[in-house]
């Protein structure tokens, strides 16, 4: 089993990243590359699906902080969805819902871009 992997799907100009495994200081580099790749190619409308993510540390949280401003400055956003209660509690405890839109369903996140 891989520690962490990302799958990417594009739907009507929106890029959806599917995270699988655990996101810590070691694996967060992969997520950073994936988001950097999208932003570098002027793709600013991003949905991140957490359905298969089992763990996140502050290193993982930091990756989203690093790209959200650029995405929003270019009429885009990084919207988060499908978190388990365990993962959501980490985001919530630190106040991330102040800055990030977090949806229960992927469809809801996608619809918000239209």
């Amino acid at each position, binding site marked *: 089993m891989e520690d962490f992997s990302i799958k990417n799907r594009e739907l009507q100009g929106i890029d959806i990243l599917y995270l699988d495994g655990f996101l810590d200081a*070691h694996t967060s580099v992969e997520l950073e590359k994936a988001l950097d790749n999208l932003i570098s190619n002027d793709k600013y409308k991003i949905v991140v699906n957490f359905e298969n993510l089992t763990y996140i540390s502050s290193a993982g949280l930091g990756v989203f*902080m690093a790209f959200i401003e650029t995405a929003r400055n270019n009429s885009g956003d990084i919207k988060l969805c499908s978190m388990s209660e365990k993962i959501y509690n980490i985001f919530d405890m630190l*106040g991330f819902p*102040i*800055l990030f839109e977090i949806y229960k369903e992927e469809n809801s996140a996608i619809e918000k871009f239209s």
Partner: protein
Amino acid sequence: MKNSADCVYMEKINKIRVSSSTKNLAKLRNFIEKNAIDSGIDDSTINQIIMSVDEACTNIIKHAHKFNENETIDVETKSDKGQFKIILMYKGKGFDPNDLSSPDMKEYFNNFKVGGLGVPIMKKFMNKIEYVRLNSDKNFLTLIKYL
């Protein structure tokens, strides 16, 4: 001395040594999880302890050892007297998390800051954090959770 002998018998101690690399964070989390389960700790508390240890070790790897994999971190867990303790022993530049005040999160998000959340997470999830530096190069960081 019956009481002290009983205490020694009751105390569960487990140790692991890993090289100072983020590659070993998963191994450390598994070690903590196994020992916390063996100590009868509930899932929610285990998750808090695991994340706190991850954050502490990540800081050691980054700041004390600057990703030098030749350095090591010794991790020891102790479960006794209603407390689960994790003791991290490492060489290099020390740091007492108690010296760092938690950021104002409203300001943090307004300014799109990155990083600096490891210590606030440790402080939020653990009941007590103790830091001791010995012999000018040996650091002991103890994370304590009351059960």
